[in-house]
């Protein structure tokens, strides 16, 4: 496991150098919020941030992505035949991703890369991506990663973890992909024992800053139908306006729609993020809709994350504790409270 210590200034130069080997994505301040953007002249990294408003899931799984192309021009011998779109699967690195968002990719991987089907768009992009995490010295008040199998310096799902030690960044390779990244990183020096100790202490002390603990331990033992028919859903969903903000911000929400778009004679088949909050998500051609009421859609979201996923994969809940849905829900619906209600229901 390779370790390299960089001054903060050095780190920026190093990242510039790494652009030869990777497309580098970094947190950039954009208005009031941070967002991941490709490192270039206009986009300078700002690592002094808590987390981006949008999760970096779109760097592996774009909000809108072309799947196939075709022509409807009957003079073309290949008219009406789908062709796979050219894709750029060159190496990329997400530098500064928080451990919760890296953990989220591990959660989502079970869906896109399963024993029966591999989603080539997701898998190829994920395989070409190196996740260079930045541990959380100052977790947000809404963070609850430690309740769902993660932590502010959790290495699971990361290829490299970076410790912010004030004046310096300590980079530690975790996986082979991570070794590659750290080896390619020019400059930096060896870390002495004092530095290592400081990093160790940082990761321990940050744990105390996570104030919330959420119980999910009993979810697995519940019966799906009993939770489904429980009386609390009307209360949980009462204020919901089905805006879908939670699903779009969530790093572990993966549902998508497939649509055809045509301009003139040329067409694309595109997939777009979709949301279980929308009635169209389940509307049948006949007009029948199994989830036509908002409470059914709210229940679907929480049951999927906190029960169906738990039962299906035996991999904990479908949540990495990033707290985005809690922070940005316009009506203050809080998944931590819902988890407690479900976990305690009998």
């Amino acid at each position: 496991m390779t370790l390299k210590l960089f001054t903060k200034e050095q780190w920026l130069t190093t990242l510039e150098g790494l652009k030869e080997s990777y497309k580098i994505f970094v947190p950039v301040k954009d208005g009031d919020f941070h967002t991941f953007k490709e490192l270039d002249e206009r986009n300078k990294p700002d690592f002094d941030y808590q987390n981006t408003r949008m999760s970096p899931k779109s760097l592996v799984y774009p909000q809108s992505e072309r799947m196939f192309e075709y022509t409807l021009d009957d003079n073309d011998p290949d008219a009406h035949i789908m062709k796979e779109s050219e894709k750029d699967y060159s190496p990329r690195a997400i530098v500064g991703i928080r451990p919760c968002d890296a953990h989220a990719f591990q959660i989502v991987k079970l869906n896109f890369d399963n024993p029966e089907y591999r989603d080539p768009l997701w898998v190829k992009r994920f395989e070409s991506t190196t996740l260079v995490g930045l541990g959380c010295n100052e977790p947000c008040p809404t963070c609850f990663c430690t309740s769902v199998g993660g932590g502010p310096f959790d290495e699971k799902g990361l290829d490299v973890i970076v410790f912010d030690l004030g004046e310096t960044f300590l980079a530690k390779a975790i996986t082979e992909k991570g070794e590659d990244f750290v080896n390619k990183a020019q400059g930096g020096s060896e870390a002495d024992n004092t530095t290592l100790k400081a990093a160790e202490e940082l990761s321990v002390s940050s744990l105390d800053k996570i104030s919330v603990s959420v119980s999910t331990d009993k979810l697995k033992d519940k019966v799906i139908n009993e939770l489904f028919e429980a009386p609390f859903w009307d209360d949980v969903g009462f204020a919901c306006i089905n805006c879908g903000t939670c699903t779009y911000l969530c790093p572990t929400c993966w549902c998508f729609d497939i649509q055809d778009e045509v301009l003139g004679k040329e067409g694309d088949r595109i997939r777009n993020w979709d949301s279980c909050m929308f009635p169209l998500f389940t509307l049948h051609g006949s007009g029948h809709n199994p989830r036509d009421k908002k409470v059914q859609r709210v229940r679907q979201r929480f049951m999927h994350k906190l029960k169906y996923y738990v039962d299906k994969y035996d991999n904990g809940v479908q949540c990495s504790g990033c707290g985005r849905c809690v922070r940005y829900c316009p009506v203050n619906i809080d998944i931590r409270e819902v988890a407690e209600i479900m976990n305690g229901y009998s």
Partner: protein
Amino acid sequence: MENPYLPYPVRIDDIITETEDRNLKTFKFIFLNPEDEEKFSYTPGQFAELSVPGKGEIPIGIASSPTEKGFVTFTINKVGLVTTHMHNMQKDDIMGIRGPLGNWYPWEEMEGKNVVIIGGGFAFTTLRSSIVYMLNPENRKRFKDITVVYGARSPGLLLYRDELAEWEKRDDINMHITVDGTDDPDWKYNVGFVPTITEEKITSADNAIAIVCGPPIMIKFTQPVLEKLGFPPERIILSLEMRMKCGIGICGRCNIGDQYVCKDGPVFSLAKLKQMPGEY
């Protein structure tokens, strides 16, 4: 890496208007690449995504039987964007098929048993596939008595009328065709709703398995009839419909509880359905 979203290109070889309201047409497709036909190896009860470039995809049950070689057929009800477009397509037009998808009727379990098939309206497609499959000389001996109750609102709305007439003449299948009502004085089959005819004609659940496919209202009233006859929920088999996109259990919309209708279904036993939330 195989791309499970990539449809096989097919050519429309024939289009048959099935019903007098012209709302149901059967499409016969031939694969442009013969090797795709081999890859599209299916079992009765499965479905596929029919892909019309520029319009989209729709999940439709396979109406042909794997014993019929060289083509696949689907019967399409005109409902939305893609189906309406398809109803205006012509022979020799090119489109796509993606599949086969989903599970199938429990053929291993059905071996050596009496098979009762109950269908209503345009949900008779995968049941047609199943009947043709079972009547195939190589398969027929694997099953005991085959009994079919099939109903539509009126005679002109029955699917596959020529085949129904042929099956009526055979002695290795018991046909009970029915319509809700008719003013045709020459109508020689039953008049009555499917649950009623089921109650009249099916006399025993002994060593029998029932496959039910139809509109929700028919299923709702047929279920108690079957239970009264003594069919346990494990031996009542249903095929469900749901809005779908990917068809392979990834896009997340067609779930009932932790089951995806596209991948874990569309075929479920009533016993299984009773353990699932009633959200369908």
